[in-house]
């Protein structure tokens, strides 16, 4: 365990590398999880739009 927050940041001199890794990996993982939900919603909206266009076309003829 780290005795102080400062030591936690410094990581015994390897802080740069550890935080470089976690700084890049963690946001990526979080983004990935969020993207899953957003992609589904966006696809449903897209399908709804094409649906509407198709329905108008069938009504028009």
């Amino acid at each position, binding site marked *: 365990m780290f005795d102080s927050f400062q030591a936690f940041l410094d990581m015994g001199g390897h802080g740069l590398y*550890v935080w470089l*890794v976690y700084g890049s*990996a963690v946001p990526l993982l979080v983004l990935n999880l969020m993207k899953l939900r957003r*992609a589904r919603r966006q696809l449903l909206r897209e399908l709804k739009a094409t649906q509407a266009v198709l329905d108008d076309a069938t009504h028009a003829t």
Partner: protein
Amino acid sequence: MRLKEFWHRLGSPRWFYQMSGPWQLGFTVAAGVLLLVGIIWGVAFAPPDYQQGNSFRIMYVHVPTAILAQSVYMVLGAAGVLLLVWRMKLADMVLQTMVPFGLAMTALALFTGAVWGRPTWGTWWVFDGRTTSTLVMLFLYFGLYALRQAIPRPEAAGRACALLAIVGTINIPIIKYSVEWWTTLHQGATFKLTEAPAMPIEMWAPLLVNVIGIYCLFGANLIANLRNEILRREQATKWVRELVARPLT
């Protein structure tokens, strides 16, 4: 027989769509929780390594992504076999959607490996057993991705990628062995499920949590991508039209 029926049902995307709803939710939640716990445990609470000090904490991201990157390629190889031999539509969707995910995992594994190498071996990149075979796997992923883009017709592109994935999967052990044989710099695998862990339990436990967490993330990605792909491909069918008509769930 249960398995036979499951196998037969896998053929119809609609059944998979309905069945996979709860699974995806489960995987997403599990991934979120496990990764959160695992990373915090690894970064803050795991004891420092007597040799490498705190830089070994990078392992908690590097090892899971590296292992997952290889597993994803095996999954792609298996999907290739399922597509070419049994013509399963789901397998084609797996091949189409999961290559970018595998590519990202391999790239992340390489990046974290390089950053970890800096403090421990003194250089950003060294061509040794593990890093080189992961790099080659990155090229294999690029090959799959480029082949998919190059072939216009989706069905032909699917089958071509399936064949390439199978050929790649056969070659991975050969490449891995020849690269390991060529170099002896890299220390033995730090994480073997078979024999006892090479490090104390309180270091090894968060790693296990992270590995399971990242596999759950893979599960969540896989099912989410498959469900989206099913909707996209079956949009002309009645059940999809009804589903789309319903207010956004």
